[in-house]
């Protein structure tokens, strides 16, 4: 901060010395700047309509910096000081902001936000600015910019732009840009009732194309209208399939969250038989570990998130060991007391977080590579954060399966839960196995917390929201069966998402609960009941 300030002072000094010299050496530049200043000044008016005109004027001027100004205006970083100077705000957090002169690009140090006045824009102007920037960017050498710009033009094309776009399509090398531009022109033509446009849009799933086609379907020309209606019917069919796929994806992603939340419980409750009401709070600890990691590594949210996976596991596992050693081992075989005691622990942990950290939710940043969505086609895109969580859930599940089936620990766990006395007489240290199992289940809860920090709020109540769902999934899937948990979680997720559009979120939840109650009445041991003598115990 201080460095910025001194730099700003230095700049001011230098400026005052050199300003006269500059005026003499580059008179053309100054003339440009005068014109530029006039253009910018037209922006600083009350009425949004006048601002719109000023934006058009800037666009029509052939100043090279026009795009930068418009972008700064769009980002709300074009501001004015009290002495009427236009500045670019470089960083707008806190009370003092570093700024630079818009015309010269010189850094001016930090200014208080009291002394700066932002050139405000509203959504209409934002739309206008985006379209304006899109038109400028069509000529940009940068392919990415051209792509965004072409995408932006869908449904925004007017008669004047069509010949320009036709020329551009001829010259364009990038396939994607060419496709979008052709589509944009076709939308304009279809809306105008031209057959060529309707034909070009056949099979396009973009909503703008659909709107254009439904307008063309009302056209006076029966040939065009019929063609458009036929195209629309085909598109509707396609959309239905895509909608089904989308719902399936939503269901699987909700299901994967349920699986993650429940799988740790499937071990502590399902395999060990301990009712741990503090399971949700172990997830909360995992989520807070992610937050703490991001605080430790500012500016690297992605790395912090990856490091939180082992860290969250460790923190929750250690907390689990503490709970097991401190409370649960003394309550063996007394489920009611265990339930009450662990419920007490969950309240203690919640209040601890509230007092030590804050009652307010913490911000966990989603790394760049996890936001946005993967575009499959114009009607179907899959959100990335959920896709990562889905994959993560499957990896965690596979890992747990491996541990339970292929390692010595897994073997011992299964032995101890099937017949404790026999296992002990075979030389297995049952107490140690208890600790390890509980630590494993708790650690997995921590992993769930790390994943949840990307989907929901990280706050003291995080665990409470998932504890009921977790028990529901474990009981539905069949206590003591990991496969059951996976199938139960995913299918409950899909059922919920299929019901939601027509029943609403509240009712869908209720229906799912009623369904589970009825199901448990019919099959008390869940989807995949344990067979054999172990099940009797």
């Amino acid at each position, binding site marked *: 901060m201080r460095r910025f300030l001194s730099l700003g002072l230095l700049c001011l000094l230098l400026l005052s010395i050199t300003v006269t010299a500059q005026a003499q050496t580059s008179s053309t530049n100054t003339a440009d700047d005068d014109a530029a200043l006039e253009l910018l000044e037209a922006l600083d008016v009350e009425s949004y309509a006048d601002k719109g005109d000023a934006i058009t004027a800037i666009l029509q001027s052939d100043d090279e910096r026009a795009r930068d100004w418009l972008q700064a205006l769009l980002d709300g970083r074009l501001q004015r000081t009290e002495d009427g100077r236009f500045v670019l705000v470089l960083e707008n957090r806190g009370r003092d902001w570093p700024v630079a002169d818009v015309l010269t690009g010189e850094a001016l140090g930090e200014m208080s936000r009291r002394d700066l006045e932002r050139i405000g824009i509203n959504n*209409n102007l934002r739309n206008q600015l985006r379209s304006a920037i899109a038109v400028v960017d069509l000529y940009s050498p940068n392919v990415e910019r051209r792509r965004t710009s072409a995408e932006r033009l869908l449904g925004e094309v007017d008669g004047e732009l069509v010949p320009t776009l036709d020329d551009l399509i001829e010259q364009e090398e990038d396939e994607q840009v060419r496709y979008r531009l052709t589509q944009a022109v076709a939308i304009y033509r279809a809306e105008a009732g031209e057959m060529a446009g309707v034909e070009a849009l056949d099979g396009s799933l973009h909503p703008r194309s659909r709107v254009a086609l439904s307008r063309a379907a009302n056209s006076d020309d029966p040939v065009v209208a019929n063609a458009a209606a036929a195209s629309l019917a085909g598109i509707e069919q396609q959309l239905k399939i895509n909608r089904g796929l989308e719902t399936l994806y939503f269901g699987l992603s909700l299901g994967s969250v349920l699986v993650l939340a429940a799988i740790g419980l499937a071990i502590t409750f399902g395999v060990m038989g301990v009712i741990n009401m503090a399971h949700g709070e172990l997830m909360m600890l995992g989520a807070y570990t992610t937050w703490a990691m991001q605080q430790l590594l500012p500016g690297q949210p992605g790395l912090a998130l990856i490091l939180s996976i082992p860290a969250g596991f460790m923190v929750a596992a250690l907390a689990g060991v503490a709970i097991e050693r401190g409370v649960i081992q003394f309550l063996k075989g007394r489920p009611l007391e265990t339930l009450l005691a662990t419920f007490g622990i969950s309240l203690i942990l919640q209040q601890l977080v509230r007092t030590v950290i804050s*009652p*307010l*939710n913490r*911000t966990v940043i989603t790394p760049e590579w996890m936001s946005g969505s993967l575009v499959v086609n114009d009607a179907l895109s899959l959100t990335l954060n959920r896709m990562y969580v889905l994959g993560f859930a499957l990896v965690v599940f596979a890992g747990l399966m491996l541990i339970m089936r292929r390692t010595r620990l897994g073997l011992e766990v299964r032995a101890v839960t099937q017949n404790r006395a026999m296992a002990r007489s075979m030389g297995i240290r049952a107490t140690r196995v208890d600790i390890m199992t509980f630590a494993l289940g708790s650690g997995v809860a921590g992993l769930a917390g790390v994943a949840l920090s990307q*989907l929901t709020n990280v706050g003291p109540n995080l665990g409470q929201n998932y504890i009921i769902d977790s028990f529901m999934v474990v009981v539905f899937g069949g206590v003591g069966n990991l496969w059951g948990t996976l199938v139960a979680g995913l299918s409950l997720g899909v059922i919920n998402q299929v019901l939601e559009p027509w029943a609403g*979120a*509240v009712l869908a939840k209720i229906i799912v609960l009623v369904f589970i109650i009825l199901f448990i009445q019919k099959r008390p041991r869940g989807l995949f009941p344990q067979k054999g003598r172990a099940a009797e115990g």
Partner: protein
Amino acid sequence: MNTLKRSTHPRPFLSSGRFATALLTAAIMGASTQAIAQDDDPIKVGILHSLSGTMAISETVLKDTVEMLIEQQNEAGGLLGRQLEAVVVDPASNWPLFAERARELLDQEEVDVIFGNWTSVSRKSVLPVVEELNGLLFYPVQYEGEESSENVFYTGAAPNQQAIPAVEYLINEVGIERFALVGTDYVYPRTTNRILEAFLKDEHGIADEDIMVNYTPFGHSDWQNIVAEIRRFGEEGKPTAVISTVNGDANVPFYTELSNQGIDAADIPVIAFSVGEQELTGIDTGPLVGHLAAWNYFMSVDNDDNYDFIDAWIEYTGDDMAVTNDPMEAHYIGFNMWAEAVRKAGTTDVDTVKDAIIGVTVPNLSGGYAAMMPNHHITKPVLIGEIQDNGQFDIVWQTPSTVAGDAWSDYLPGSRDLIADWRKPMECGNFNVVNGSCGGSTAAEEAEAALAE
């Protein structure tokens, strides 16, 4: 015994086990000192905000705000020459507990005024207690209206000071023709959406198929389907907006899902009635730029009173990044109104203050004035702000003058004919202008109904 306690000594003496000493001192000091001692007695200000549970996120800052205002008032010499003392209780986001804590404040602590409550259901729960024990309650949050109690002063917005102007802005300034009303499933969103639906259909002729209504539970976190539905709803070629009465931290996953599914404010703007600066501190606002909120105050209001308030708040909390929000301003206004009324009345007696406060005018933080109306609501400007990438709002529109709060909505059949006026001779919160009769207080039944839900 009670009167002796109150009139002879400041509290600290008696709260501990020194009752004997207290009696002795009283005896020594004698009757002559009584009058003076009463003047030294602090004025007690009750604070009834949840400090734990789900609402702690929003209500804790309001408790701090009132404490800060009390501190400032004490530094300026107190009120009527007496110091103010805060009495803080924690109703723990538990609605029936609100009523118990309110009773404790009025009965045992004998506070002169209460500042508190956030959710409507907690207010409904407290209502019968405040009316029975004749207390004063200042309620600082925007709410659904349809209520005017003799003992409550509503310093937050009524629907005509927030929801209705916001919708008019969308229709007239943005040109929206299609509305998705999305809310949390409880009394405020349901009543507000009922009013809005009636308003959209009757006043603007919006067709049924252009209105979509959706409710979600408290703390809802899986918004995939609802956002996809909104996206499809907005793809029909008409300009579409979402009116959100989603409450609390369910907003974070809602906005995240919106941005992940690529819904931009320029395509489908979301206008929220419950998202303020405080709620945005938990969100990365980069993808939300341009979404809207309607309030009566924003932290970004360019006004010296506001900057002073912000500086005081930052100093009080010791947090450079601390934010201010609309309910805080409502408490600021409510506290100053109450102080002014006490000064005017020369006493803290509830009945006198209640009469004196009607018509009291104090500056608000957006450069205007707020006046207490006879229906116990206040005048407020309505501001529409767009979210910026720094978690602040940029004000894009505001009403030319302040709007007086209307307790009973003009757009609902049953409430259209009701008015509230607590001045003599009417003194009624639900006077029916058609048949000329006063409905009387229904606080007890309403509390029961609200808590039964």
